[in-house]
């Protein structure tokens, strides 16, 4: 296996007054998509922050082979700055990296076009729907050409139609990128996980430790209209069962 883009090896994190998470072991290969699922409070967000280099483990190691500014992060809410328009929001990472304003704005416009908001460059966040704001956040994460893209339940708050379209668009954007970024995303939704990810990592409720690593069928990029394919439905069922088994055995383990 080639050098991973990011790896957690025996990483533990002390949670202030709530015990500790870990040890966490997770190796993310370049260009792959990994879904993280687990109960609330299983440390999914902490795992993402470790992978992003935003937080240091209290023990163990985090290795990242990501260039500076080449990590994209999409949070649970769009977290746009309300005083700036869509284009300025997307240009922010480039401007923080010291790119010239004109170049940053141009690349931001291109990134917004790629997520289907090429006609809303000067819209303020308050003028955008939840789905559109999330697209802006996605464009902001993609504008630097990230090697590692981290998504913390970005679609959880959206209605199902908007959510389906965003997932399909995200998959298309990932497939079209060259080189493709590695994507780690947190989700509760099996269909979403099966549609996007090559493997699904189940995290243990109390410690956040990965307890199962389930592959999904059909190597990505997934064909168009894959959702209509019986193979997809089959994969969702199989994965849901495996997920349930993994979570049940984990509950049994915890009880024992």
């Amino acid at each position, binding site marked *: 296996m080639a050098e991973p883009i990011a790896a957690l090896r025996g990483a533990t994190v002390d949670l202030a007054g709530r015990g500790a998470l870990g040890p966490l072991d997770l190796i993310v290969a370049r260009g792959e998509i990994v879904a993280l699922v687990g109960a609330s409070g299983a440390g999914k967000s902490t795992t993402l922050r470790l992978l992003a280099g*935003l937080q240091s483990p209290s023990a163990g190691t985090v290795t990242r082979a990501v260039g500076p500014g080449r990590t994209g*992060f999409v*949070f649970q809410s769009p977290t746009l700055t309300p*005083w700036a328009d869509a284009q300025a929001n997307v240009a922010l990472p480039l401007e923080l990296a010291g790119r010239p304003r004109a170049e940053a704005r141009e690349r931001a416009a291109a990134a917004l076009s790629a997520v289907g908001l090429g006609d809303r460059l000067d819209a303020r966040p308050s003028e955008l729907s939840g789905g559109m704001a999330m697209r802006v956040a996605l464009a902001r994460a993609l504008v630097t050409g990230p090697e590692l893209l981290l998504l913390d339940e970005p679609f959880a708050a959206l209605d199902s139609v908007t959510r389906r379209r965003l997932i399909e668009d995200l998959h298309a954007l990932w497939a079209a990128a060259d080189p493709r970024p590695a994507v780690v995303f947190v989700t509760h939704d099996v269909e979403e996980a099966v549609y996007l990810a090559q493997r699904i990592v189940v995290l243990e409720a109390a410690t956040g430790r990965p307890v199962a690593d389930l592959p999904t069928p059909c190597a990505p990029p997934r064909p168009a209209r894959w959702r209509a394919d019986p193979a997809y439905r089959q994969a969702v069922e199989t994965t849901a069962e495996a997920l349930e088994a993994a979570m049940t055995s984990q509950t049994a383990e915890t009880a024992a």
Partner: protein
Amino acid sequence: MRRSAELIPPLLLGVVLLAAWEGACRLLDLPPYFLPPPSAVAAALIEAGPRLAASAWITFVMAVQALIVAGLVGGGLALMVSLHASAERAVRPLAVALQVTPVVAVAPLVLIWAGLDHADRAVVALAALVAFFPLFSGVLTGLKSADPDLERLFDLYGATPLQRLWRLRLPSALPFALEGLRVAAGLAVIGAVVAEFVSGSGATQGLAWRLLEAGNRLRTAEMLAGVLCLTLLGLALNAAVGLVERIVTVRIRVRR
């Protein structure tokens, strides 16, 4: 149409109260030095109008000067303190102590320090003293109010402290600073009046002096006219701050 309809109940109540006051004065045959009827207050307002207007202007200018001083000192201090958690822990108790110390008690001291022949400076200093806390507190709270996920985003892209301040914390602080300004504006007028009362003897010619002067001559109607002017002054200052708030908020379109 609806706005004017909303104005009817308070206007009606005002008219009823004034009529009751006028009626009571006439029926009970109250001496005018004890409680003059509204008609006498109105007459005093017209008779002393030019003097009161000139004094109101003096008080207004002193209050605005105090707001500027308090804004610069309070805002600047909040900015410095926000850079270090330990600095905030050091300064906050002092700021609170300053806030709870009655301004009336400090006024004679400030008058001595400002120089007895510079009563106008003492008035500005005291008004600034009471206006300081809401501005300091508002700016400090605002600087720390930025969305933690946005702070993480700035970490992720390696923002410099200056970039973080200019592009994230200052814009986030603005609504809080404006709220502080609104409170401070009301307090500044109170501070100015108290300082003038204490300095006495016409060293300054603001509205409080007019009140004292009229009081000494038992011209109760003119005193009430002066109080009315102070109320109007406070309302005008409040409206001015509200206007600034609206302009700024619309310009940056902060959703509140």
